[in-house]
């Protein structure tokens, strides 16, 4: 008699299929995370000339990343942990990291879809057009910056066990990020707040994205913003992994 354990590649493919199906059937959540940035993009059509196309795109993408990391990822993780979905998978001959990698890969795919939709709607509705290189580096930067918000979502799920509390906390943090971030970056909350927002997770991601959408105009400020983005990501992901528990007990 022989024991065979499934190849990791096959396990990962199976998990990805299930996680994709779960995401696809969870239309309400999918619509929420994809529609929020699109609605803001369309409603800002009249502001493109005033703010500049790069500022509009980078702000809207930052809001989209916040939606995915806080409203989508963290809530699904909290719900599935509470139901025992992870424990059921962990008793199977599956390396634990494949469970998390599958979940994160689906979110990265969603982030890529969100940014492509923003580019398409920005072009079709707001008549925003940037260089081909800008679209490519913008997409790549979005994926890098996406880890920051996935890390923040992971940290919240790590620190809070109850899925209802995770839900209300992420809504609160999301609302604070969007309102303080959007109004703060335009100086509506005063100069001090503008400075604070500039170095907040919202501000550094928005700045790094703005630089990536115009790669030929990349400056030291953009480099600092990118480094700060990576720094925040490392802290959030590190603490998120440290405090995360696979079950609620």
């Amino acid at each position: 008699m022989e024991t065979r354990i499934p190849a990791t590649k096959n396990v990962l493919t199976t998990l990805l299929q299930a996680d994709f199906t779960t995401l696809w059937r969870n239309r309400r959540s999918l619509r929420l995370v994809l529609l929020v940035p699109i609605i803001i993009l369309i409603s800002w059509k009249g502001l493109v000339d005033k703010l500049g196309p790069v500022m509009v795109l980078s702000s809207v993408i930052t809001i989209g990343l916040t939606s995915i990391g806080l409203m989508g990822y963290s809530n699904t993780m909290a719900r599935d942990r509470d139901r025992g979905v992870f424990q059921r998978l962990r008793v199977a001959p599956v390396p634990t990291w494949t469970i998390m990698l599958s979940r994160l890969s689906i979110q990265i795919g969603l982030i890529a879809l969100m940014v492509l939709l923003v580019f398409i709607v920005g072009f079709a509705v707001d008549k925003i057009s940037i260089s081909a290189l800008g679209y490519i580096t913008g997409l790549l930067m979005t994926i890098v910056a996406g880890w920051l918000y996935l890390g923040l979502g992971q940290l919240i799920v790590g620190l809070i066990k109850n899925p209802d509390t995770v839900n209300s906390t992420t809504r609160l943090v999301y609302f604070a990020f969007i309102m303080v971030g959007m109004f703060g970056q335009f100086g509506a909350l005063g100069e001090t707040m503008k400075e604070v927002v500039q170095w907040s997770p919202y501000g550094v991601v928005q700045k790094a994205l703005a630089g990536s959408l115009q790669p030929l105009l990349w400056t030291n400020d953009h480099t600092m913003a990118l480094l700060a983005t990576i720094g925040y990501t490392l802290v959030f992901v590190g603490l998120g992994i440290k405090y995360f528990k696979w079950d609620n007990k």
Partner: protein
Amino acid sequence: MSNTLEQLPILNVDRISVFYGQFQAVKEVSLEVRPGEIFGLLGPNGAGKTSTLSAIEGLIRPATGQIKVVGFDIVGQPLYAKANMGVQLQATSFQPELTIADILKLYAGVYGVKLTKEDVFNRLQEIKLEDAAEKKYGQLSGGQQQRVSLLIATIHNPALVLLDEPTTGLDPQSRRQLWDRIEAIRAKGHGVLLTTHSMEEAEAVCDRIAIIDHGRIIAIDTPERLIALHREDPEVISVSRKGRITLEDVFIGLTGRAVRS
């Protein structure tokens, strides 16, 4: 990847201890499950049943002792050990967006079993749920959910099946049906370890049982021998209600009348 199975019994738990911080939930527990045996783990709430089972499942690491599933150490060779066990957890544990067919395909995939659409239909037909392939798990009755859970636990034909309170909340018909399925697993020569609060269930299906209390195994034998061994104990006689000694009398006599939280 592969490895050869040589050692018996199917499950060997050797003096394991489990701690939660300073609290010791399991104290040097040892037990064996043999091929073609249904082994029951009984105990009051908080006695250490679930902690023992979680350690066997590889969900928590014992502080001391060793657990081997068909010779594979759950700590040293977790994937090989887990590949040889099927687990039915106590709580509902599937994504609510997935259909029963999706869930079967997912767990077949993670256990390395290839299932065609026809295979899925046939497997569901075996448990009389062929019409439920496109239903969500939450749309099934309690008995149907338990049948699906057991099907998934045995989808890879494991040598050891672990069932955590499998019949809790089921009506008598569903419970009898599940017992038949558990006995069918035994008939194939597989080992079954189940936890239960039902003494009737333990007497009806278990070949041997262990009573665990305060983290220690206080008795281990066949139900018949446990009754015979303890029928003269004053504590057992004092709790007897039916004029004859039952397994429940022995259980309460050994673990006490106090209700556990």
